[in-house]
Structures are given as C-alpha cells and as structure tokens.
C-alpha cells in the first residue's frame, strides 16, 4: 500500500462515518456558529501584501484592506472605495473622490493622504504600478476625500490596475503604515476592509484570526469578487493551517473545520461522497501549467530546439499526470491565455494540437545542432504540480534523444537557481517547471511569463520583438476588439518563438460543509456573503 492509497482509505472511512450520521466530536460541538473555520491553501507566514506577494497573503489581505476599485466576475473594474472619478478628454488628468464614512480599524477616517501613500508604496513593487509611476507627473490630495493623478500620457488600463486581483493588489493602508519602505515588511495591520486582523492571536504556521469590523460600510451593490457590497455575516474567521491533506480531509468530515480551500484531487471523491460536504470548482480561471526553457544557452537558444519540444509534447500526458483522469478538470491549451475569458486565443496553436510527431521533432532538434549535451532540468519535488510535470518532461526529452540532467530538488532551491544566468554547467539551468494562476493569464498586464523582452523578461529570458510589439499594442488598445486582435497576434508570436511551453489548463476544487452557505467561485476565497448555521 502506498501513501496515497492510505490517505484515500483514511479519508474514505471518515466519509463513511460521516454519512452514517454519527455525531461530531465534542471538540467541534462547542464551536460558535458564527465562527467560520477555514483551511487556507498555505501558511500565512507574513502579512504584508506589498512586501510579500504570495497568494495566501493576498487572500488574507483582501479581508483587512480595501481597494479603490475591485475587479468583478466579468473581469471589469468597479468602484469600491471610490465614489466617483473624472477624467479629462485627453486622458491625462484623473480626479477621484472617496466614499464618505470610510474608516480604518483604529477609528480614523480614510483620507486622500492615505491613498497617496498607499499607491506610492504599491507602485514601487507592482509591474503595472511601475508603468503608472513612469507616466506619473503628479499625485496629489485635493482635499480629504479627493485626490488627483496627472499623467504624462494616457494609460487606458488605469482603473484595471487599481482594482486588479493579481498580486500585489493596490490595497489602501493608513499613511503611517504605507510610508514603510516597500522592501521592508509592515508590522501594523490596520486596514479599512470588512474584517480586522487579530494580531495577538496570530501563530504563523498554525492560526490566523479575523474579526468582523462593525464600522465597515459596504457598498449597496451585490458583491462580485473584489467588487460590490462586502457583507460579513460571521463574527469571527479562523484560518487553521493543516499541512497534511488527509488530516484536513478528516477534519472537514469531522466538522472540526468548515471550509477547505484546496483539497487535493485524490481526496475529492471521498469528500463528494460525504452528504455533509459540498465540493465544487474553486476558481473558474484555474491554472496554466508550464515549463520554461533557457533562451540564453544551447540547445534552447535555437528556436528550432524549442519548437521541437513543443512539437513532441503531449499536453494530455501532462494534464493526466498532474490532475488525473477527471477530464472535467483539465483541457489542452494551444495558447497562453485563460480559457473562457474574453482574450482567450488559439491563433498559432497548431503546433500543440493533433497527433504528436516525434520523428519530425527529432529531425528539427538535429537541425538545431543538438548533439547530446546534458540538459539540466530543475524539478521541485515538494510541489505536486512541478513534480508531475517534471516526470513527464524527463520522459519526453528522453524520447527526443536528449541527455537529461534531472535535478530533483525543492521549490526553494528552484526559486533561487532559476534566477542564475550562468551557463548550465556552472549553476545555471536549461529547463524548469512551474504554473500560473489563470487570473494572471487573462491579459498581458499581470502576465510577466508571456513577456519576451530579453534581460528584463521572466526566467529563461526570451527575446521576441514580435511578441513584445503586441504587448504594447494591447496596452494601447482602445476597445475589446483591438485588445483581442493584439492578443491573437501575441499568442501566435509567442508560440512561434516559444516564449515558454504551456502544458495545459487545469482546475482545482474547494470543499465546505453544508451548514456553510454563500461560497462563490473566484480567483480567491471570498468571505463576504458567507454564513454558517449551527
């Protein structure tokens, strides 16, 4: 019996116990109905959403800090803290007015000076923020509720940037906190969001607690992702970190926790069979699997070698290894953008479609001059997604006749080593595996993995003038049609130059007990509108 089978068995028996209608243990019976216990995807190890950009930090920060705008489920920015905005005809001067009565958790009113300090800190770390900063001529307070942004040239994606849900989000903090160096961590967690962070109860790696902020003034509109009325229907939210999936599954079945953000797919069948538990897709935007080749060194500095890999790879192999045989959870991705979103494109995707042609790929690889030199392939073993992909890639490269130097290591080492631009024999690398949240792949703004501006590009440092030209075209697009046209051309160029190799699109589940209601699908767990009965 392997460990995975044992985990399934354990969770399965828990399911039987629960479906048999047995009572919950004393530990959970005493818990207040208005306390929601949630198992997050990872440990909340720090709590500065500008300094640390992990998704778990963003998800917690969305409770504590509010935003000027919020992206809704249609991927459009909607007013959040802002009451109104006014822009001059030339698109250069924006005047924003804050809603009245916005308060921080310490009782202070939210003022323009807080917004200015927060945007200044955010713009030092965020790629879109950096673009705005480069165009910014003036960011000033007109009065306590009004502030003005003057640009040197129009930036059509401004409201999207201020409301986007990709890390780092432009959260608004009190001025005294926002004045912290963006490269240093804040230690004061006062925000104006719908919940307060109970710092005294925070045990990093184990527990984080949030309490309802009774002075929060939600908008009147219906909540939709980061936009609309963030109505909190619970008094207290406890994030319980449970690193072991089988333990988390058992705790959910036992009623020791109410909501598990990211159950592993192996355990989903037993959770689904439990009559007390709901299981559904967590985020319709899902994830994009990928591996990146190093464009600086042979063999992948030759586009023919990169194309040979694309010609030979089977996305189905990757997805089955990664997600399993539940085909509702994955689909091939002959492109780079998130399926189901307005800019999704398959233009130029033929190289990833249809029957795989290993012979043609081998021929193309030979033409590139590859002659058996080792290919250093970094594979993090502590991340199931990278491990599964790495195993498939190793097999693929061997089938192509490549000499694989398989470096099995941990994610921390991959994170550090992938930044090395030295030759592969001297600490560098030729391939590494990763994945991108689908929310980051809906357009080129937050999508740094698609950028191909050489030295400034993401790891692998691809150079593709054709792809970069279309990124600029997207930023300058005035309407959705222009955006789509630009992204079609970008998709084609990025595949032709093989900026990176997409291995497919996959979804994940979330699971919660049936006495919890209001759970919605989205790129992060939204707690507004969620309630619990005893």
């Amino acid at each position: 019996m392997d460990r995975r089978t044992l985990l399934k068995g354990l969770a399965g028996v828990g399911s039987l116990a629960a479906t048999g209608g047995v009572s919950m243990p004393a530990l959970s019976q005493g818990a207040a109905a208005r306390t929601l216990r949630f198992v997050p995807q990872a440990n909340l190890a720090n709590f500065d959403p500008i300094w640390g950009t992990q998704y778990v930090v963003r998800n917690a920060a969305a409770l504590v800090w509010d935003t000027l705008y919020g992206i809704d489920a249609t991927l459009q920015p909607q007013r959040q803290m802002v009451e109104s905005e006014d822009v001059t005809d030339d698109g250069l001067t924006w005047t924003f007015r804050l809603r009245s009565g916005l308060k921080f958790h310490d009782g202070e009113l939210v003022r323009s000076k807080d917004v200015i300090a927060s945007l200044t800190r955010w713009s030092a770390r965020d790629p879109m923020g950096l673009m705005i900063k480069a165009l910014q001529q003036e960011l000033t307070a007109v009065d306590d509720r009004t502030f003005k942004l003057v640009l040197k040239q129009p930036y059509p994606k401004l409201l999207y940037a201020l409301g986007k849900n990709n890390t780092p989000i432009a959260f608004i903090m009190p001025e005294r906190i926002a004045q912290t160096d963006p490269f240093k961590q804040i230690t004061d967690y006062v925000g104006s969001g719908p919940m307060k962070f109970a710092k005294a109860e925070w045990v990093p790696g184990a527990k984080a607690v949030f309490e309802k902020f009774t002075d929060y003034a939600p908008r009147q509109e219906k909540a939709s992702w980061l936009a609309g009325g963030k109505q909190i229907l619970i008094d207290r939210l406890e994030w319980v970190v449970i690193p072991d999936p089988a333990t988390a599954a058992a705790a959910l079945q036992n009623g020791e926790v109410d909501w598990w953000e990211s159950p592993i797919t192996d355990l989903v069948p037993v959770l689904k069979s439990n009559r007390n538990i709901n299981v559904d897709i967590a985020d319709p935007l899902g994830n994009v699997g990928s591996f990146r080749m190093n464009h600086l060194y042979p063999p992948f500095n030759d586009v023919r070698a990169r194309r040979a890999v694309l010609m030979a790879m089977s996305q189905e192999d990757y997805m089955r290894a990664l997600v399993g045989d539940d085909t509702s959870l994955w689909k091939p991705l002959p492109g780079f953008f998130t399926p189901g979103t307005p800019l999704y494109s398959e233009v130029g995707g033929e190289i990833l479609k249809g029957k795989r042609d290993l012979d043609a790929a081998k021929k193309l690889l030979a033409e590139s001059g590859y002659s058996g030199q080792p290919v250093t392939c970094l594979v993090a073993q502590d991340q199931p997604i990278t491990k599964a992909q790495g195993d498939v890639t190793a097999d693929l490269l061997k089938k192509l006749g490549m000499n694989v130097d398989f470096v099995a290591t941990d994610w921390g080492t991959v994170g550090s080593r992938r930044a090395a631009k030295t030759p592969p024999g001297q600490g560098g690398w030729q391939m590494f595996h990763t994945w991108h949240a689908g929310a980051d792949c809906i357009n080129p703004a937050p999508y740094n993995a698609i950028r191909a501006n050489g030295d400034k590009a993401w790891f692998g440092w691809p150079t593709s003038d054709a792809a970069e030209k279309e990124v600029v075209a997207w930023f300058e697009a005035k309407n959705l049609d222009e955006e789509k046209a630009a992204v079609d051309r970008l998709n084609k160029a990025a595949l032709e130059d093989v900026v990176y190799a997409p291995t497919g699109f996959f979804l994940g589940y979330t699971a919660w007990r049936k006495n919890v209601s209001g759970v919605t699908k989205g790129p992060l767990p939204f707690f507004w509108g969620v309630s619990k009965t005893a």
Partner: protein
Amino acid sequence: MVSYILRRIVATLPVMAIVALFVFSLLYIAPGDPAVVIAGDQASPADVERIRQSLGLDRPFLVQFGSWLWHILHGDLGTSIFTSLPVSTLIAQRIEPTLSLMATALVLTILIAVPLGVVAAWKAGSWIDRSIMAFAVFGFSLPVFVIGYILAYVFALKLEWLPVQGYTPMAEGFWPWLQNLILPAVALGCVYIALIARITRASMLEVLQQDYIRTARAKGLGMPSILFVHALKNAAVPIVTVIGIGIALLIGGAVVTESVFAIPGLGRLTIDAILRRDYPVIQGIVLLFSFLYVLVNLMVDVIYTLVDPRIRY
C-alpha cells in the same frame, strides 16, 4: 556533584558554539534564497536584490555570522525573515505543544516499554516474549505517519473518541489538553516503545542471570519485587542511556507527528522555516534542540548516580 554539573554546563558552551558555526555555515552554503521566496514571481532581479540588502543577506559570511553571534550572546535569537516576529516569540508560541507532545510520548513510553521489556525477559523464550518482541519489531518498522493515520482512522474518524488535529493549551484544562495529545503521543511513542522494550529485555536478561537474583529467589521474595526492585534497578543504566539517546528520536519524530496531526509545535515551525529558508528561525531552533539534547545527556549522567551508587563524578 554540583561542581560536576556546573563543569558540564560550562562544557556545553564550546559544543553550542561549534553547533552554531556548523549550522550557520550549512545554511550559508545551502541553495535557496529567502529574498526570492519573499519577492514572488512578479519581482524583478533588482527587487530581489533590494530585499536581500534589506535583510542583510548581501553581507560577507563572517560579518553575518559575527552579527548573529553577537546577538545570540546578548540573548537575542534574531528576527524571522518572513514573519518579522522575534525568533524567541515564535519559539515561545510553539514550545508548549512540542514539549507536551514529547513529555506525553516519553511518559507513555516508559510506562509501557519498561514493563513490557521486563516481562519479556522474565518469560524469555515463551510465547509472551515472542509476542512482545514481534510487537517491538512491528512498532520499530512502521513509519510514524502510517501509525498516525491508522490511529486517526480508528479513534478519531471511526470511533470519534478523539479529535483529528490541533492542540489545546494546558491552561484551558487538563482533559482538553490531553485529548489532543493522546493520538500523536502514541504515534510518536511507538518506535520509542519498541526500542526501549528491546533494550530493557536485553539488559534484564543479563541481570536475571546474576547470583543475587538467585539469592533473592531463594529468600522467597515475590517475583514483582525481584523484577522491578532488584533486577530493574541494576539493569537501569543502559535503559536510561537509551532513553536519553532516544530524545533525538523523539525530536525527529515530532516533526512528522506535528505535521500529521496539525500540532503547532517546533517541528512544524522547523519544516516551514527550512522550506522558506528562514535562516534565523532555523538557527534558533537548531540551537535550542542542541541545548536540549546536551541537557538531556547531562540529566542522564546524573541519573546514573541515582540508579548505580558505584558511579561517582
């Protein structure tokens, strides 16, 4: 004795210094970079470098080591790179669950393993002996996480007697505290029980052959008295030694057990810190565990004198 204990405590200082240097060097040369983890995927190399500078990780090895050592000498274990909380605070938050788990496992082990070993030696060669030794082999062979899952399946999920995960501080009551510790302590103690039971049996077998045991029997002493008063005391030195050595086993096992049962202890703190390359936390915990281990060895040496009056320092 007092001067001996003081000398031993002083002698731990160079040991701790070597451990400190070793750990610091190991982390320095180990691959991985906390700045990269903090910066995230969106960060540019310049951002990563700025974070590295702000953390002081760009300084030469000797400067970093000297600074760390200087703070240690002033009782400051440093600040966690990720949480910005003092390492001493993180350890203080986590030490109670780990010590509780280890202490419960240790008590459980001694209460179970020593009598089992004594009985096995007394009934050497019988089915009782063979059964106990088979159990010992079984306990020694099964990984801690497997035992943990089986226990959770039976006692938490099937019977619903005990919780699956978590920890309740002792301040909230003895039973709630113990309730969360029973399963993990049994899981953690299994290997240890097996080890101690085998050592106890071997040591007792040797003692039971001695003339004074025959004399005791001839005097008409009852078997329990012979086994647990006369024989066990004389067999105790190797048992105490192995219990001391076994503390290291418990520390290692606690890391896994705390993960399986989601106990917020030092073991989980260690794993989290290693995966994120949170150097100050790793260094603080290793130093603490080293100190604990040295302390346990000292206690073992002191206990020798209690169980065997011939031993004098």
